């Protein structure tokens, strides 16, 4: 027997990756503040861990949720491990954004996300991209519900400070485009 093989068959692992890989990657892009190389690496590491557990997947009630939680935890542990402390984003605009286009606005949002701590960023991503409840977010990040709420408020305030009033317009523009 190959020691590198999980106990159970893994034929359906590629199916799982095909179904969840894009979502995981996009979550990773938000977590990394738009660093696509790091995001891809993060997803690979996450899926590698999921694969290592795949033979035991009957114990995992929700593989997609398990993978998402693993992704966030991997992100936080990778950032700690690499000593990627919060660093000033050199290219963050000093002034609120104007209507120069969606791409620039998104880049500005990603810049702002990078200014948050890893945990604060993870809280926002889980709450507002993954649509997880406070309790679910707290469980995934091993925080108390109160800590999630306070981090969320703090992160929102920070985004508000970084992006200015144009953040609202950006959101409205995005929502309008999404509804078209």
């Amino acid at each position, binding site marked *: 027997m190959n020691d590198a093989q999980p106990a159970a068959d893994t034929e359906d692992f590629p199916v799982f990756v095909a179904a969840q890989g894009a979502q995981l990657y996009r979550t990773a892009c938000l977590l990394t503040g738009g660093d696509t190389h790091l995001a891809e690496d993060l997803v690979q590491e996450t*899926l*590698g861990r999921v*694969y290592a557990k795949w033979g035991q997947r009957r114990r995992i009630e929700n593989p997609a949720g398990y993978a998402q939680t693993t992704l966030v935890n991997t992100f936080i542990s990778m950032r700690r*491990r690499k000593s990627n*402390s919060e660093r000033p984003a050199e290219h963050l605009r000093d002034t609120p954004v104007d209507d120069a286009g969606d791409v620039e606005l998104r880049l500005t949002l990603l810049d702002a996300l990078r200014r948050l701590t890893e945990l604060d960023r993870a809280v926002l991503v889980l709450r507002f991209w993954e649509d997880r409840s406070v309790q679910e977010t707290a469980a995934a990040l091993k925080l108390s519900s109160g800590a999630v709420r306070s981090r969320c408020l703090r992160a929102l305030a920070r985004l508000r400070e970084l992006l200015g009033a144009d953040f609202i317009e950006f959101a409205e523009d995005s929502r309008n485009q999404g509804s078209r």
Partner: protein
Amino acid sequence: MTMNDEQLRLSVVLRETAQSFDPPDLDVLCENAVHRGRRTIVRRRAVGVGIGMLAMAGVALGATAAVTVSHPATGLGPTVTVVTTSKAGLGEYLATSFMALLPAGIKLLPSYDAPLQGEGYRVGGPSTGDWVASASVLGTYQGKNASFDLELVQQATDGSCMTSTPSANSYACTTSTLDGHRLLTEKTIRSGVPVSWRYSWNVGGGKAVELTLNRDLPESVVAKVLTASAWTSVLRGLPAYVDCPSLVQITGAADVVWKCPTTGKTYPTKSNDMYIYQSS
């Protein structure tokens, strides 16, 4: 605008932004993930040895080891990760040696938001199993944040470079030597952009020491940190400080009992919860 409105709109913005990222080739992603997963399984099935980590000013830190244990019912070998604190001598030894590698201009920063941390520095967590000991120092140099990671890692069974980002496909495995130790990885270049300077030395016993320096550091500082005489001292003294754990943290295992190979003390755990035991 109310707080709820703002949160709703943030949700919209995040979705729009996330959707703007086109995912990579999922077949390639899967293939690379399977490669990593298999390597993890191989590592988990190898019995590791806990080694103490950096300690400073009387603060004991941890080391990790992937340890194969037996399930009481099935006899299979789920894996636990063991974090240990070791005798103070090891920590003091590593701290002193590691600090000696740093340029005089480095000012240490207070650590933050990390478990098992001490004043002025922090250490990594036991999450990956790639490494068995790690120490990181945060500092400032010439107005920039600087980070220094020193890791003692378990080498891959096939002798390949142990890196955290094999997907980069750009790690240069060389046969260069420093202080008589084989230099496994010279530096990390990802898509032409230096992410970090990463050096790894084989120190025998299936282990390697890795040093990661962040990209903000000028090469002159990197050269200073890689002073050969300092590394000679660190590497020569390291094996003498391997110790049995006094603190054990078990994660990721279900209904297993881990037995410390040195003391014989047992540590039960259940269903993926984390347990921390302090030896008396």
